[in-house]
């Protein structure tokens, strides 16, 4: 161990020198700009994976090894939030490095990667695989682990320095929990909630419908009637802000209907509106989106009881909305503001969906064409924190 730490100290010194100019030399140092809101970061690993986090002697940077540790090498690294790859290269000390610009001055950096799957300029979505954990670069100490840093562009130069004390790195947050407040901390079992979206499903007596959000964030469906079609149907081109929920039911007027709900795209103030789309012909055709109000932060859930459809979701202004049957008045508490829908204009707003007014978008193709992406399904989660003893060594046993 002593030899390991000495070797690490030397490597860390070299790394600090070597990484110190990762803010481009000569870059214009403009006045400090306040960062934007911190994105909702998830652990940079696939849904359900369990990891150990250590701040060692380099807080707020974290070293991450998988539980069990033997599974660390080659584990998938998933983008913790949407962003654009800012750097992707091999560094003589840090090995394979990727840095993602998440917007608003927020950056995440990954070191010692076994392999990089994204290059500079690539748009990445939350949950997208960007590489695998390895032990590249001498500062990895030959031990497979992921060295992770969250950074804020504090000086407003459009970049975020990393890899050394005094850089722009800050304490990381995952699922709303702050880590690495100080050196020598350990979190033994941290589960990734970097999960994909749950489909919305609804069944009538003759059909089973599945609704999903493609990587273009538009609504797609597949319908089972004895067999599954090969292709997904793009129901509507509007950009959605949540996965869809669906319900098949018979309303108070006796009409059999299939309803689909999702949050619309946020407006300039970040406010979203819940949207509703209805089919009266067992999912063959749907109305346009109807705004029913609410500002949910998650995918809604729908259920039916005695002819009334109930919608639930975690929200900021409204958590439950009873959807009126056709011909009734929209509840007074329901907002009629229109969310933005880039690329398709504002969706129609109607208080009483009618079978005669149906959406025409039925283009058939696979939902999305880019790499797999994920969207979180909530915050918090099962995280057990156990601060460990402060280690005198400036370095961790797994390198930097």
């Amino acid at each position: 161990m002593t030899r390991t730490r000495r070797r690490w100290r030397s490597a860390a010194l070299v790394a600090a020198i070597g990484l110190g100019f990762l803010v481009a030399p000569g870059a214009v140092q403009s006045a400090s700009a306040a960062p934007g809101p911190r994105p909702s970061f998830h652990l940079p690993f696939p849904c359900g994976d369990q990891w150990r986090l250590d701040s060692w002697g380099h807080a707020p940077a974290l070293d991450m090894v998988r539980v069990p540790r033997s599974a660390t090498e080659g584990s998938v690294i998933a983008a913790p939030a949407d962003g654009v790859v800012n750097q992707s290269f091999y560094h003589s000390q840090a090995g394979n490095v990727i840095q993602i610009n998440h917007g608003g001055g927020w950056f995440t950096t990954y070191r010692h990667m076994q392999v990089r799957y994204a290059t500079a300029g690539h748009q990445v979505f939350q949950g997208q695989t960007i590489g695998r954990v390895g032990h590249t670069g001498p500062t990895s100490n030959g031990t497979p682990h992921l060295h992770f840093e969250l950074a804020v562009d504090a000086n407003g130069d459009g970049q975020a320095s990393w890899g050394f004390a005094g850089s722009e790195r800050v304490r990381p947050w995952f699922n709303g929990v702050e880590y690495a407040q100080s050196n020598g901390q350990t979190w033994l079992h941290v589960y990734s909630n970097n999960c994909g979206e749950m489909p919305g499903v609804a069944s009538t007596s003759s059909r089973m419908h599945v609704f999903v959000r493609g990587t273009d964030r538009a609504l797609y469906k597949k319908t089972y009637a004895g067999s599954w079609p090969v292709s997904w149907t793009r129901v509507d081109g509007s950009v959605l802000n949540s996965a869809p929920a669906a319900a098949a039911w018979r309303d108070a007027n006796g009409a059999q209907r299939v309803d689909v709900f999702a949050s619309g795209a946020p407006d300039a103030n970040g406010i979203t509106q819940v949207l509703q789309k209805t089919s009266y012909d067992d999912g063959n055709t749907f109305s346009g989106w109807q705004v029913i109000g609410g500002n949910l932060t998650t995918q809604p859930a729908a259920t039916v009881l005695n002819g009334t459809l109930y919608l639930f979701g975690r929200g900021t202004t409204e958590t439950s909305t009873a959807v009126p049957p056709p011909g009734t008045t929209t509840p007074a508490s329901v907002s009629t503001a229109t969310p933005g829908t880039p690329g398709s204009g504002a969706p129609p707003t109607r208080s009483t969906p009618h079978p005669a007014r149906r959406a025409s978008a039925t283009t058939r193709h696979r939902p999305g064409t880019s790499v797999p992406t994920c969207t979180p399904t909530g915050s918090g989660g099962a995280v057990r924190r156990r601060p460990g003893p402060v280690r005198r060594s400036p370095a961790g046993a797994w390198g930097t």
Partner: protein
Amino acid sequence: MGNLTGALGIMQWERQLRGLRPGHRSKVWFKWYRSVWSNWIQQSTLGTVNSSVAATLYGGNTNLFARGPSGNVVWSPYAAGWQPWTSLGGVIL
């Protein structure tokens, strides 16, 4: 059962309320309610998924849907036991 990840999918089935969600190592767990709640039970026949699990009752049987490890949609009908996930293709968020 350890810790759960992701949201909870709920359905009503034969007067039982069942909850399903991916849990430890992204396996599917479920429990049911019939006057009282059962313990959580892992569905060992189902592979790992990358999202919460949605369920619907169709033709008298439960059908499960989720996002597969590669971003595709996967489906498992209950027919004398949970069937292995079948891919419905696509790439979703």
